């Protein structure tokens, strides 16, 4: 069988990353390696993985076969084995396809974006390492293998955020991302260990766990589901571990597009979907997940309305969209959530790449209020950005409309009306802040300088066009039956619990109209406030929203500083002045008692005679007392 090719989907980018890494070290140490060599290895890897993934996709059409390849036994302890195994079912192959495809486009874009960077090779070294880890994450056949990819993506994300490491702030952002992710990973490990303890005896992979988790008591399942979700919170930047995502924008823009928008941050959603057999057993945890998602979505959208940095607006919007996905998967609409992961990958990658193009064109300006009039200067970027903005706002027939509509439908039909209201309200905000961005950047008149725009190479603009087409078409794979379409994604991902079928068609139509109306309302407000935005100076913002509700500051004071203080206290007060003092005190006590005893040996004959006398009298008194 050709199942071993599954491993090669992961291995190709991994090997390419390794080769590029070695070449890069060679190039900085010995002789310069031209950029096209790096590009050759860097760009071919995602394409090859995509083709391999596609071949599995073709084999899967029309049947429910699950491809499993166990490469070797990773460890074997006490009769329990863990294999290095790869599994491709419809969910993971679907993820592989869009990760490699979008990843490939972003690679092409990056080859233009990073063209003049001296760390060009290093960039692709990290980038392909990320891709390999991400593919391992989705193809792992069990939690442990998934966790390897899970940590791998976290690590490469850290490397890429700190990419411009000369600036300490970027490194700080990288550390923050890694540590916040580690808190999540801690939850993941706890969940894995618990799962192994309660259900690992028949094999610790997804297929076996599906069966063996059925016999585990519900409180334990709740604990597992909750701990796993802590991992998802960390990776997918939900409340309360989201703080790293906005700072993660310190990395190069292609990184933000690939890792912090299209792929890695959706790993949490993927994980919940992958563990659907677990979450089906514990709907109360699912509801909790949905609420965390909804609150995160709203919270991020509110913050996004006041931001000025183009990439941070998009970062908060990513967090907000991830919240939508969690609403869906939390309520059991796994295919709906994955559908939004899919459409979101297209339009959010496009938004970031468009933003990157604008940033490059304006010589690395990121404040939207220092931009303006880009519509005339870069019409192609404008046009593609417009499509992506329409898509994220939920205007039909663009991709985001269908997936967002289904999420809200899921919330409504599950009877969670509060979630639905939050979702609709967030949709208004989404349309508002996205069009605010669009109007200010492309229509505004703030940018007055006649500095020549930086040239945008073809490698940067072509992917924009392809993704724009994707942002228009991606939604059509999940057209609701209401509109005469066939929900391809629903039927592809199979017979998961999907509650969206319990409402009447008329309700469905009303909900759809409400969604469209919400989006239009948001656009209208943005139009009123920001169309042809003209302001002589960059506005100065104040207030709690602009300051992101002071969450960073609160964390700093309550956690970061406290830990630092505590460790300084332990280190200098307890360790040096208490524990070591006792130890040294003991040893000095010996020395001191030695000194005292030494005084007896003072070579003074009278003293010796005196002690002898005392000794003899004591002994004789004793003897007299005893013998009497």
């Amino acid at each position, binding site marked *: 069988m050709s199942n071993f090719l599954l491993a090669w989907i992961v291995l190709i980018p991994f090997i390419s990353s390794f080769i590029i890494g070695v070449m890069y070290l060679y190039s900085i140490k010995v002789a310069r390696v031209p950029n096209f060599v790096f590009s050759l290895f860097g760009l071919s890897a995602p394409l090859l993985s995509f083709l391999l993934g596609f071949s599995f996709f073709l084999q899967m059409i029309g049947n429910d076969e699950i491809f499993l390849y166990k490469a070797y036994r990773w460890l074997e302890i006490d009769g329990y084995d863990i294999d290095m195994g790869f599994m491709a079912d419809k969910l993971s192959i679907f993820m592989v396809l869009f990760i490699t495809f979008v990843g490939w486009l972003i690679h092409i874009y990056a080859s233009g974006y990073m063209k003049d960077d001296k760390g060009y090779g290093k960039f692709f070294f990290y980038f392909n390492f990320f891709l390999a880890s991400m593919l391992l994450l989705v193809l792992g056949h069990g939690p442990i293998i998934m966790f390897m990819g899970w940590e791998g993506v976290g690590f490469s994300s850290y490397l890429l955020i700190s990419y411009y490491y000369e600036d300490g702030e970027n490194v700080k952002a990288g550390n923050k991302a890694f540590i916040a992710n580690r808190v999540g990973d801690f939850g993941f490990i706890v969940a894995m260990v618990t799962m192994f303890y*309660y259900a690992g005896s028949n094999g610790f992979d997804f297929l076996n766990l599906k069966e063996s988790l059925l016999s585990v008591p519900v409180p334990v399942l709740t604990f597992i589901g909750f701990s796993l979700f802590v991992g998802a919170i960390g990776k997918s930047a939900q409340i309360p571990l989201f703080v790293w995502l906005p700072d993660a924008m310190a990395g190069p823009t292609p990184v933000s597009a690939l890792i912090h928008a299209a792929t890695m941050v959706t790993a949490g959603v993927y994980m919940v979907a992958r563990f659907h057999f677990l979450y089906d057993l514990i709907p109360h945890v699912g509801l909790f997940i949905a609420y965390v998602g909804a609150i995160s979505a709203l919270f991020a959208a509110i913050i996004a309305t006041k931001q000025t940095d183009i990439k941070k607006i998009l970062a908060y919007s990513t967090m907000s969209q991830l919240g939508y996905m969690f609403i869906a998967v939390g309520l059991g609409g796994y295919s709906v959530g994955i559908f939004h992961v899919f459409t979101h990958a297209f339009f959010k990658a496009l938004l970031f790449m468009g933003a990157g193009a604008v940033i490059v064109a304006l010589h690395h300006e990121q404040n939207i209020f220092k931009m303006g009039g880009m519509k005339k200067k870069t019409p192609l970027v404008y046009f593609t950005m417009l499509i992506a903005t329409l898509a994220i706002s939920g205007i039909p027939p663009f991709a985001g409309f269908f997936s967002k509509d289904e999420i809200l439908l899921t919330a409504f039909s599950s009877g969670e009306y509060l979630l639905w209201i939050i979702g609709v309200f967030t949709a208004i905000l989404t349309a508002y802040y996205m069009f605010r961005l669009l109007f200010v950047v492309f229509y505004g008149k703030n940018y007055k300088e006649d500095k020549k725009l930086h040239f945008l190479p073809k490698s940067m603009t072509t992917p924009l066009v392809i993704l724009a087409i994707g942002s228009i078409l991606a939604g059509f794979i999940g057209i609701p039956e209401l509109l005469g379409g066939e929900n391809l994604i629903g039927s592809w991902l199979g017979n998961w619990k999907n509650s969206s079928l319990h409402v009447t068609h008329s309700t469905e139509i009303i909900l759809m109209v409400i969604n469209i109306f919400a989006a239009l309302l948001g656009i209208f407000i943005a139009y009123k406030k920001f169309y042809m935005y003209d302001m002589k100076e960059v506005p100065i913002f104040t207030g709690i929203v602009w300051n992101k509700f002071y969450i960073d500051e609160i964390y700093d004071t309550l956690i970061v500083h406290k830990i630092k203080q505590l460790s300084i206290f332990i280190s200098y007060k307890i360790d040096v002045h208490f524990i070591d003092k006792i*130890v040294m005190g003991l040893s000095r006590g010996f020395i001191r008692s030695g000194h005292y005893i030494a005084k007896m040996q003072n070579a003074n004959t009278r003293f010796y005679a005196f002690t002898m006398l005392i000794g003899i009298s004591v002994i004789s008194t004793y003897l007299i007392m005893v013998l009497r």
Partner: protein
Amino acid sequence: MDHILSLIIFFPLLAGIAGFLVNKDSIRVYGIVVSALEFSLTIALWIGFDNNIDGFQFVEHASLISNFGMSYSIGVDGISLFLVILSTFMTMIALIGLNIEKDAKNLIISILYLEMTMVGVFLSLDVILFYLFWEFSLVPMLYIIGAWGSDRRIYAAIKFFLYTFAGSVLMLVGILYMGYFYFQQTGIWSFSIVDWQLLSMPFNLQLWLFGAFFLAFAIKVPMFPFHTWLPYAHGQAPTIGSVILAAVLLKMGTYGMVRFLLPLFPDATIYFLMPIAIVAIIMVIYAAMVAYAQEDMKQVIAYSSISHMGIIILGIFAINAEGITGSIFLMISHGIVSGALFMLVGCIYDRRHTKNMSEFGGLAISMPTFATIYGIMLMASVGLPLTIGFVGEFLSLMGFYKVNWLMTLFAGTGIILGAVYMLTLYKRSFFGEITNEKNRGLKDLHGRELVALVPLVALVAILGIYPKPLLEPIDLSVKKMLVLMHKKAVLPDTQDFILKVNTIKGGE
């Protein structure tokens, strides 16, 4: 192959004595060749080792003082095999990386002598022999720290010596009493571990003897609150001393726990399990916090060692195959990783003559290869999956989960704290602009250093991706020991406990 173990123990000693005759200029080559031969002997041992036998192999036995049952008795099983290989491997690597010119001859001979004692500790089956090697190992280390260390080397060396010596004297009392007890029970004297392990002991006696042995091991590990000698020793020791101290010498303590405490005193082990586990968890968190506050790069790694040793102890006192096998694997992985880290600190110390992180910054710009290897080792140290560090840590935690899930959670926070202090170290030393002009023209790693470090990097990756060859023999011997513990426990509660922590729910 009959006498390969004796050869492995005494070859470094004989070569060391012969080393006095070697010319001063060629002594380093001589040392490397000897240690490489010694390493290949242990590899030959591994090749000859039968993975399907759970007991001792290559056993050699010769009576020394037959009246008192003291004998020259050595053997190897899955538990000790890889620790022996680790000792010879790290000695070789440390000698390759050595760059001290002053009195190099004496230093290299001391190292070879130290190698003999380390290997001897892991291979001894006679407790008196074990104790001899155990104490002998102090002498070369005292000399290495005291003669080649930094400014306060004498203080550090004496503190190291007296502290660990004080602990082991108690162990000697325990050993002698144990021998006497064996004589009382059976009418013959024996100091063989194999004999002792078969002897059932009353609960009260177990408690006392456990205490005497435990203190010696706890100081060696070093367990909180007996750890204060370690930062001094590391702070003052030359690079090669730190490498061997961290990589191998500390493992003698945890090895002793596995080899003596568990099989000899099973009831006492269970009795003291909770307090020890609590101390281990305190140690994990405490040492991580202290590491975070350090300014000196070497101290960060020294305290991180203590933190990792806490996880190892936790794994040992899980009393199940996952925990103990995992902790032995963690001993090996920590040996490789901490050895590499101390060596890397040595590389930068040679160039800048400081270990203070505030003096660095931007090293990644001037020394990219150094930064890369350092980064890989750092990630192995924080336990990133697919590096060597993850396997042991994960298995140890998984093992202890069966004992107590809540405590495992606390120990698991070490995963987060480890990332905090290590990333802070990396950020302060390697990232950012070059603020100190002295760091600008630094030379990157050169040939000798690369030869020493690249094998370590390769091992970190290979054993992380494919740990099974090591785990298999360890697991087999550990399981045998667990059966023995279960069999000889005198209290029914102990037996129940051992059974409980060795089964997982939902099975059978």
